[in-house]
């Protein structure tokens, strides 16, 4: 039984990391109804920017601030160049455009910053804390804390600030939102800027754990089932989705995968997500109906 809990906790902690990436998606989806495939590339871009600045001798707070500014600039540029001309395009065209954007960002990040793997040291120990019945490191606790803080901050911003309410209006009905005088392009830039900052935080934590490298852009793929299970438009749902995906894929790998040759982690979350889609298309906490046929 202790082993079961060990696997479970490990999965839940991995789930926290997925949540971090998935949050960026929800921000953009809530604001514009776009599934932003480039979120993973933004994580890579942000992490590479930060690491490169650090390696050039910048102090951590300055490097973090500079990376944040870079991500905001990137977000505004994306809004101007990609989204604004596609305002009236069907959702599929927008999705495909973010796919193109992912390629541009990945290419650009590696062109500017190089392709080698960078280490990122946050000074938080990743060794298990002594005296606990299960293996948890300080870093795990830190990551969970950051994720919780991010979720809380985004939730509060969406509920209380003027921009947050505007974003919800735009997501609900863009035409009506524009009709009552909301500045659509400004709100989109805010949403993408927010997603850029979330990507920076995710890149920071993922980069510290696995190293800053190309594979960071692939976490986007694990965030997809997280979103489906949690519900695309729910910030709280992302946490639940992340935890479910993290825990179930580790448990499935250990208890089922070992009988099937292993490696089922690679596809299990997607099959789970398809199951959720068929049984509960809005996800666990989704507020709106997914278009059903």
């Amino acid at each position, binding site marked *: 039984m202790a082993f079961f809990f060990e696997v479970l906790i490990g999965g839940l902690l991995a789930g926290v990391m997925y949540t971090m990436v998935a949050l960026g998606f929800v921000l953009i989806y809530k604001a514009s109804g776009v*599934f932003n495939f480039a979120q993973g590339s933004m994580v890579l871009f942000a992490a590479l920017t930060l690491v490169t600045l650090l390696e050039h001798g910048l102090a951590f707070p300055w490097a973090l601030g500079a990376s944040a500014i870079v991500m905001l600039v990137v977000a505004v540029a994306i809004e101007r*160049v*990609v989204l604004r*001309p*596609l305002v009236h*395009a069907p*959702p*599929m*065209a927008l*999705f*495909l*455009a973010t*796919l*193109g*954007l*992912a*390629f*541009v*960002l*990945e*290419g*650009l990040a*590696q*062109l500017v910053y190089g*392709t080698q793997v960078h280490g990122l040291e946050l000074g938080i120990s990743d060794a298990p804390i002594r005296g606990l019945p299960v293996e948890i490191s300080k870093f795990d606790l830190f990551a969970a804390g950051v994720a919780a803080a991010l979720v809380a901050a985004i939730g509060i911003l969406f509920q209380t600030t003027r921009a947050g309410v505007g974003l919800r209006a735009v997501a609900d009905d863009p035409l009506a939102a524009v009709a009552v005088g909301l500045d659509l392009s400004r709100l989109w830039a805010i949403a993408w800027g927010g997603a850029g900052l979330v990507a920076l935080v995710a890149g920071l934590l993922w980069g510290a754990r696995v190293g800053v490298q190309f594979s960071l852009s692939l976490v986007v*793929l694990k965030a*997809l*089932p997280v979103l*489906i299970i949690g519900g695309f438009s729910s910030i709280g749902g992302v946490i639940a989705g992340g935890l479910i995906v993290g825990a179930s894929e580790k448990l499935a790998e250990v208890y089922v995968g070992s009988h*099937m*040759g*292993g*490696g*089922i982690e*690679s*596809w299990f979350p*997607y*099959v789970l*997500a*398809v199951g959720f*889609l*068929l049984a509960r*298309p809005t996800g666990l906490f989704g507020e709106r109906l*997914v*278009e*059903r*046929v």
Partner: protein
Amino acid sequence: MSSETAVWTSPSEGESAGAHTRAPVRKSVPLAVVRGAAFVVVAALLVSLPLLVTDYVLSAILVPVLALALAGIGQNLITGYAGQLSVGSAAFMSVGAFATYDASLHVRGLPLLVSFAFGGLVAGLVGLFFGLPSLRIRGFYLVVSTLAAQFFVVWLFTKVGWFSDYSASGVITAPKLAVAGFDLSSPGGHYWLSLLVVAPLTVLGRNLVRGRLGRSWMAVRDMEIAAAVVGVRTGRAKLLAFGIGSFYCGVAGALWAFAYLGTVEPHGLDLDRSFQVLFIVILGGLGSIAGPFVGAAFVILFPVALDQLGSALVGGSVDPGLLQNVEKIIFGALVILLLIKQPAGMARLLHIAWIRISRWRPRQA
């Protein structure tokens, strides 16, 4: 194949064939005669290509272009015509390749083309299965189902040794290529085999999308509720799009494995290949049969051209990693640009350019 095929087979042939088509139309030669003549010229050119170009062009450019174009047609039937997003085309290609291999392995003396058809059929069934969620969900949520297909298929062929006949690395080797007693193991033979498979399927695809089924696909794509109201059986249409599109991908996968690479391993047909096929369709033209050919030619030729350009500019060989990143940026930017400016893709751009050129007359003073 009509005169419009001349536009996409290759611009250089298009000009020679076009000289026969456009000008005489004005002098009211029957259109059917013109089209027939153009068809004969183009067909003769395509068949005799191995005598005209080098083996390198045949095996490194023409064969992969044909295979990827076929996969692109499959993707386009699903995405461009029926409006269902799929990022699993490489998985269906993989299923087609392995099914073809297993069929030719376990059934002695099975004709090559029959095993190709079998591979396509199995891929079609697998595509149909992963298309089932399209009955209940819509839009980019389908990405999840096709992603599941993509990752599951790679895992399956890596882990279950039976499919690759228990070869240690999971890599399969192509059987001997021969059709009706003709040995097709030369580069020219590979090309002819690809042409023999791709040409009829292209014509079939063109007829499909112009017929009842194609129209029901487009109706589902443009407005599903309206389609249902006017009596289109939307569920059937979507499943058929997945089934038939995946059949095309499956046959393309068999071509890719046997005519182009001569071998295939599961990771060779991964998510990146799916994206490549998707890009072929977007760049070439969503909702077009000619588009995938233009897109595939671009995807294969562009890296070669970029490499040449790079070494010409620098005056030596360029770091391949650098080129790869430049290539990525340009591909991504082109996808965005085309989605904004011309969603019908390069095929439409070429078509427009062709019409402008052919209608151009010097102004009379």
